[in-house]
């Protein structure tokens, strides 16, 4: 379990060093992107249109913040991750086509995302679910917002973060998925759980 302090944009080489169980603290620009944002981004890419931000080497965060406007500037109030499993349907294509290197969420992602992480050099990490206040503390400022027509949770928030973490590496670029390993153990425990209830 090694600890890394990384700054975006990150290189493929830096990302490929990371292994499941490692901890990352991230500094630099992070873009929020949820279900609707992924969908729109992939539709635009398919049409050959330009995206509002360049994701190459960058980090996306599965997160819909609480924000407020103070003196005309957006401020983040609370910023913890949303469940990433919903985004599994989009993530392979998004990693391939956007060049994103670090995905931050919670709850885990599936086989297709793990495949893309291996093939294109990316990692899936989790920030502690529910820790919205801790997440917001790492945000230095919001430097932009796109696609606000999707609603506050689904817009792309451009956030400048400082030592955002701990982020736990759940899928590395070597084909490992930490949650799949745990799930294997839990499947073995299922019988025991039933037995305790005489089922």
């Amino acid at each position: 379990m090694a600890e890394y302090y990384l700054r975006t944009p990150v290189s493929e080489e830096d990302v490929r060093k990371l292994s499941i169980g490692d901890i990352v603290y991230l500094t630099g620009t992070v873009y929020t992107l949820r279900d609707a944002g992924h969908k729109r981004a992939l539709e635009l890419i398919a049409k050959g249109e330009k995206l509002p931000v360049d994701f190459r080497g960058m980090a996306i965060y599965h997160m819909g913040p609480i924000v407020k406007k103070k003196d005309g500037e957006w401020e983040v109030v609370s910023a913890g991750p949303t469940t990433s499993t919903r985004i599994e349907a989009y993530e392979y294509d998004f990693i391939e086509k956007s060049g994103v290197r670090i995905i931050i969420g919670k709850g885990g992602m599936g086989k297709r995302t793990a495949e893309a992480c291996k093939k294109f050099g990316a990692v899936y990490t989790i920030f502690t679910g529910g820790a919205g206040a801790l997440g917001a503390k790492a945000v230095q400022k919001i430097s932009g917002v796109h696609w606000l027509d999707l609603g506050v949770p689904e817009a792309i928030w451009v956030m400048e973060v400082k030592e955002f973490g701990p982020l736990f590496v759940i899928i590395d670029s070597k084909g490992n998925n930490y949650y799949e390993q745990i799930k294997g153990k839990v499947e073995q425990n299922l019988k025991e759980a039933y037995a305790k209830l005489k089922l």
Partner: protein
Amino acid sequence: MVGAGISPQEFEEKIKQATIKLLMAAAVYLPRDVKSALEEAYNKEKGELQKKMLRAILDNLEIAEKEKRPLCQDTGAILFYVKVGEKFPYMGSLPRILREATAKATELIPLRPNVVDVITGKNTENNVGKYLPWIDWEIVPNSDEAEITVMLKGGGSEAVSMMKVLTPAEGLEGALKAVIDTAFDAGPRTCPPNIIALGIGATGEIAAKMAKKGLLRPVGERHPDPKVAEIEKKLLDAVNSLGWGVHGTGGGPTALDVHVEIAERHPATYAISVMVFCWAARRATMRITADGKVTYPSHSFLEEEV
């Protein structure tokens, strides 16, 4: 009786302000019972990764309280559980007051706008819409007070809620299996350690209501019926033996508690519902007397503040 010297408008405004404070209390301060259970889990934890995660959870609570920020950005579906005395003077005004307070709290605290049109996907931006905030009513005979509990129910944990009508032959065994299967399938998605509730009754909505009642009960409090309490203890042990652990990392508790709430059933049905609350199990309660005195039994420290 209306409080001496307070006009109806002033009284309604008082309830509204008190409700805004109730929503703030729920969004910012985790209830004592949940916080204690998390602290206990942290103190017991030996795993390095799990300890770090539980530390992040406790740090998060401290920051939220110090800076009065919502501890989780998903301030949930807003659910009000109202126990209102038949003689409470403002019963009829409560729905309007609760909706107005919710919209105002969304702007002031602020809360995340979480109310979305099911056809168009459009967000109402103020957390008010059709049947949201949800208001659940219980009328209390011979009382002139109101007790309002709010639950902020995050989407990630609600996503695994289930309701099913079993056959009586499947019965209790089927119900217990559903709890284990729900926790097994949920894995890391529901932000464990969780509070899990099983509701049983005659119809789907009764079972679901019983399950929600289970989520409202404090962690560590057992059902008054010893037979049900025994089932709860066994379920807690069984769920934790699955070993998903803190945020699905394979160590530490999967559930902080399991609660079972039962209603009577129909001879031909055995309706069950399983609901899960994330560790950010946000709920808060206030009481309003007929003369306008407001107290917060779940967050009594707030009573000192103006």
